[in-house]
């Protein structure tokens, strides 16, 4: 069994919470820049089509 002081565990969790958005932003920026935009074979939906696909009722 490995014991970790509670204060260290909390610090690691806080650091993880801080780093996750930064990683997400980097990935999002890279994907936005890499996306060729419309014209590929990506799925595309109208509002009604999306509501039906996701079972969203208004």
């Amino acid at each position, binding site marked *: 069994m490995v014991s970790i002081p509670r204060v260290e565990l909390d610090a690691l969790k806080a650091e993880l919470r801080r780093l996750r958005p930064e990683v997400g932003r980097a990935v999002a920026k890279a994907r*936005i820049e890499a996306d060729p935009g419309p014209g590929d074979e990506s799925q595309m939906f109208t509002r009604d089509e*999306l509501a039906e696909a996701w079972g969203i009722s208004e």
Partner: protein
Amino acid sequence: MSDRLVRFPGASWQDIEALPQPLRWTVQRVIFHLLEEPVPTLADPFPADDPLPGAYELRLSADDVTIWYTVTVHERQVLGRHGGGVDTKGPDLGFRIGAGEGNRTLMTSLESCGPQLSELLRSRSGYVCQ
């Protein structure tokens, strides 16, 4: 009635479907809402230090979810007004969206015809505006 379109490039659709509930439901509702209001007041330019053209970040703190998206203008082919072939190009406003939670980032994109474009026609690879 919105005439905007949502586009899911890459594996973004599958990424969203793989989210655990209720997070998936939250992301789906937000993306659905963005079709009606592409730039809500809570959206911030993204990235904050050097924003990409038309890019925004929408942070949903309560759900620990972030939505990233851009509003872009594409030059798209449009059909002839009288049913002829492709004969000109016109503006097409687009919205690219990504959402992230934890260690994964989800990407979708919204496509929209501007308010001056009243009809949408489905083409082989997507939509064109007339």
